[in-house]
């Protein structure tokens, strides 16, 4: 993995500390061209991996990338699925069954289609595979060497102790997509233990890592212990604790943990991208 992964929260008005800032971002990135412009600026400063949700607008970005294969030949995308709000709102509106029916590919009378069959026979793993395929459609023919499940799903499976689902996910991503499975979580220590318990060793885990312990369940100490002592491939996110930390002190802190392979961050301007990249290169 590259040392620096460029994220997409800023494009979709995700701001963990300010609803107002997120609205401002949604105005800045109303047009897909504005997203592409920032992506190109990231590429200009030497960032070649874009870690993004399966938000419907990413499909437009993917189309653009496919149309310009030369320009993006070294560009990697790390998809993170699913885009949770899409499903969460659907569950509120349609119920769990309705949501599955809505998102399983195939006709709505799909009892005879693959999806309908999986649903009828309660083949949950098959269902999961179909949902992954549906989410991955937008990335067809693009480089997706690592494929993540979002924290809402990871942490739900984790809490329910349904660890075998991780195992099936891991296998499917490796065999069908020839990619590395990755896990986003707000509960890194617990997740690592659980993955290890079903034989998933040295996993790629993306979690909040910052010195004030923001979104680090169980507290800073246990995270630091795991970062120092355990074998896994950590990606640090929320390193600025949603703006509570100054970039230089935030990234200097990450330097204490040489095991951290990559840092995920998003920015809305070229100067921010440059500044953060410089700090990461200095400290990691």
């Amino acid at each position, binding site marked *: 993995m590259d040392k620096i992964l460029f994220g997409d929260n800023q494009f979709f*008005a995700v701001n963990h500390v300010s*609803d107002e800032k997120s609205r401002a971002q949604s105005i800045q990135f109303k047009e897909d061209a504005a997203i592409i412009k920032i992506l190109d600026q990231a590429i200009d400063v030497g960032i070649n991996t874009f870690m993004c949700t399966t938000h419907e607008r990413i499909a437009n970005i993917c189309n653009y990338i496919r149309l310009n294969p030369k320009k993006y030949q070294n560009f990697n995308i790390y998809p993170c699925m699913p885009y949770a709000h899409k499903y969460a709102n659907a569950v509120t*509106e349609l119920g769990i069954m309705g949501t599955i029916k809505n998102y399983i590919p195939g006709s709505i009378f799909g009892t005879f289609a693959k999806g309908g069959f999986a649903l009828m026979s309660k083949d*949950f793993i098959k269902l999961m595979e179909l949902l992954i395929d549906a989410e991955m459609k937008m990335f067809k023919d693009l480089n997706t060497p690592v494929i993540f499940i979002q924290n809402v799903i990871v942490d739900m499976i984790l809490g329910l102790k349904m660890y075998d689902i991780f195992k099936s996910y891991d296998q499917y991503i490796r065999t069908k997509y020839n990619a590395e499975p990755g896990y986003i979580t707000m509960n890194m220590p*617990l997740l690592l233990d659980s993955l290890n318990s079903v034989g998933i060793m040295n996993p790629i885990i993306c979690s909040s890592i910052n010195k004030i312990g923001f979104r680090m369940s169980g507290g800073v100490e246990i995270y630091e212990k795991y970062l120092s002592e355990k074998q896994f491939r950590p990606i640090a996110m929320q390193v600025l604790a949603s703006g509570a930390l100054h970039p230089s002190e935030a990234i200097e802190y990450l330097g204490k943990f040489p095991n951290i392979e990559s840092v995920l961050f998003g920015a809305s301007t070229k100067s921010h991208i440059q500044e953060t990249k410089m700090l990461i290169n200095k400290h990691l």
Partner: protein
Amino acid sequence: MARNIDIFKNQKGMITGAVIGLGKMGISHAAIIGANPLVNFVAVCDSSTLVLDAFKKFSTVKTYRNFKEMIDNESLDFVLVATPTRFHFPMVKYALENGLHVFCEKPFNLNSKDGEELVQLANSKSLINQVGYHNQFIGTFRELKRLLQADVLGDLVHFMGEAYGAVVTKEKGKTWRSNAEEGGGCLYDYASHVLNLIQEIIGNPVHSAGTKLKSIYSNDVEDAVYSTLSLDNGLSGLLSVNWSDNTYRKMSTTLTVIGKNGKISCDATEIKIYLKESNKKEGLDKGWTIKYITDFALPVNFYLRGEEYSAQIEHFVNCIITKKQGSYNTFEQGNNTDKVIEMIIANSKKN
């Protein structure tokens, strides 16, 4: 927040619990309870065989289709009820009658008389009771309450309670949420959160006027609620809630309080304070001060969808273990919110 790593491992829970109702909230609660090292999570109950089969296949908990059977057969300390609202009363009642502590999702009931009976029953048996108004466990709202109690705004003039989101944005979909008889609709769903916050942070609404319940995309229920509320402390203000607002990515709830000395606007992510004069005791300057959730988030051992969801369960579990009813989200408080909802419905019929 120092925590022992071993808390995650090999520790047998101190209390035993089960979840009734495995919709979106129920599954989320089940995961949070499952991850709580103080709890033995032993059983779930739901009417959907699809969901139950998933639990059977992938988890170690027992599955039931009948809640009475589950309560009768399992040796439980508590149940968490997360079914559609109309089922709350019989389920909570049966659990209380069987001596179980109960966490019940919001809204508490569709009829405050039922709620009153449950409040009495829980109190008479000294059972821990809590309703799932999770906003009470968001640090920014707690800070707002503290600042109001510290009187930083001086005499209060006005308040606004708002919630917006994009839940129902199309004319389709039939679930219990689209059925008024079952407590679907924006008033019981979205607005109840705001009313509960107003009640616990600013003052208890005792009068409602000019209420409009508006349907936007739904046929049978309201998608927006607007009302003028008067509180027991004499303050009046506005309620404005709309769950069919496409401009919001997710639910956004805001309380604004205006006083003679300034104004505070608070949501789940930030608290914005404007003061006419500085407040030395609170360290607040004249003019604007903005503080973020990073300063106020309640530390939790497990995170799913927001600290507040775990914090409320940790609070409930802690109350059971210490055998002491907490002051957050009691059945009585939940039932009070139901009474306010009834008052608003009654007023809407006059308009």
